[in-house]
């Protein structure tokens, strides 16, 4: 266990050195964080300039959702996002040919490809998202209770497990269909999580809750924060998350076997 923790610490260190090698990186990250924030807030602000509620959600509630959306994005960008991008994103290992070296390492492949790249600048995004959520909660006039916080953290854990599983699935697909950097698809679909899942028509809502659980990823933690989530939903979500995790890990193993059977 200590072996793995030591490796993670090392990976964080090397990623940090890489990021700070160029000063421009810092300014650019700052700029991107600001832009993400503006884009996130603008949509909701302009919308509620025209209407009072949407599908039963008020402005502060929608703001909470924006905060959770930004939080999930930031958490993803800290570790699993950059790591899996190195595997199967644009210009990833599989296309450029360095994946063999990853396979040769005496470290379980799933562990290696999931934690080897860190982007610590995302901590800034994380902080901002927490600020947004704080402001939203204040506007709701709701205090954060301990059970509420606990529920929120559980929902967040379920969320991130789902995010990791979906990203891993998509990254593994690259072994089968080498032309397309599929992690991009996730970025596109997660956009649908900026707004309450209820705004989508029935069939789409079902799709977004059970097939690509975007609804679980953002709406559920937001509702947990405002104390509106029934325990059954959380349990269902946890089951879904664990199921997806098992599926994704199995699919990665299958994809690795394929790679080793057919790489030329």
């Amino acid at each position, binding site marked *: 266990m200590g*072996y793995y923790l030591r490796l993670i610490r090392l990976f964080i260190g*090397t990623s940090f*050195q890489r990021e700070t090698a160029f000063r421009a990186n810092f300014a650019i990250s700052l700029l991107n964080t600001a832009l993400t924030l503006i884009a996130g807030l603008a949509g909701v602000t302009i919308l509620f300039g025209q209407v009072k509620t949407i599908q039963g959600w008020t402005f502060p509630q929608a703001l909470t959702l924006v905060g959770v959306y930004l939080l999930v994005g930031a958490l993803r960008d800290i570790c699993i996002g950059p790591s899996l991008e190195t595997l199967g994103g644009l210009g990833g290992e599989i296309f450029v040919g360095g994946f*063999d070296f990853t*396979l040769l390492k*005496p470290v379980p492949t799933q562990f290696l490809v999931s934690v080897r790249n860190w982007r610590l600048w995302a901590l800034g995004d994380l902080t901002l998202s927490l600020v947004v959520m704080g402001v939203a909660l204040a506007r709701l006039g709701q205090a954060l209770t301990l059970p509420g916080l606990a529920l929120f953290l559980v929902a967040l854990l379920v969320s991130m497990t789902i995010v990791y599983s979906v990203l891993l699935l998509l990254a593994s697909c690259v072994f089968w269909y080498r032309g397309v950097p599929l992690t991009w698809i996730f970025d596109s679909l997660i956009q649908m999580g900026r707004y309450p899942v209820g705004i989508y028509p029935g069939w789409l809502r079902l799709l977004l809750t059970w097939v690509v659980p975007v609804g679980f990823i953002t709406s559920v933690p937001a509702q947990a924060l405002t104390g509106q989530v029934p325990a059954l939903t959380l349990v269902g979500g946890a089951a879904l998350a664990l199921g997806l995790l098992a599926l994704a890990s199995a699919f990665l193993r299958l994809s690795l076997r394929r790679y*080793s*059977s057919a*790489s*030329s």
Partner: protein
Amino acid sequence: MKPQIAVSDLCKVYRVPEREAGLGAAVRSLFHRRYRDVLAVDHITFTVQPGEIVGFIGPNGAGKTTTLKMLSGLLYPTSGEVRVDGFVPSERQPAFLRRISMVMGNRNQLAWDNTVSDSLYVLAEIYGVPRDEFGRTRDELVELLEIGDLLSKMPRDLSLGERMKCELIAALLHRPRVLFLDEPTLGLDVTMQFRLRRFVAEYNRRSQATVILTSHYMADVVSLCPRVVLIHQGRLLFDGDLVRLAEQMAPFKLIRLAVGNGGGPTIQNVLSGLAQPVTIIEQNERRYTLRVKRTDASPITARLLNDLPLADITVEDPPIEAVIDQVYREGVNG
């Protein structure tokens, strides 16, 4: 002694999609994919003892890299058996992976944007190299490779040769028992190639690590590998001493001479007066290249020295590239 690498009846078959040119074929391929089976490695059998340096040679696409990948566990064999150091490579057990290492000529494992020493440190941790041993091994390799202070630089700022040296350190940090080198001298300048060969030979001598090398440069193979395995179209054509191969394939020698000034018979006269068969391969003013049978080389040379006013004369083995090229074209027979 028990062999370190044992390969028996190894086969690898690829399924390659067939696609023709043209729009019609492209549309058809959307619905009906046709595949072709390519036999990349065809029942190869050989063993390697610990500490040997073996060169794999063969034309492009012969199956050398495929074989190497099967030995390192990157590729699953279609059939046959492979055992490296007692392990089955495709199982990819961590204990096996810690004993081997691979260097690929056109690919880097070192992170582009981290200093070399940082990458080395991470590798030491990944392979579980104890701290003090890490320092010793690293320093030893740095000295052997004459790297100096490159360790504090980043691969993006290094030249190709410098990068390859750092790649070698990275590969040898955990003291593997088996080292796979896949075209390691690709793209390097002559000096660097020379230094690299010297390093590999010295490293093998000191550590007794087994080295499997593939290369297109015959100079690598000639200077490093007492034993070669020749693979052509997936089949193992020859396994043994390169010199023996040359003698077997091309049992002749080349005599290069330059005729000086002075009277006496012309070269044509002398040659036509010889009992042994001689072929003139090249002729450039007063310089000639003759091909004679190996056994005839001495007597013919003596006659030429005697009868002609020579400015220069050398007796050579045919260039190994020509021999190998002949093997690729005609196979190994007799």
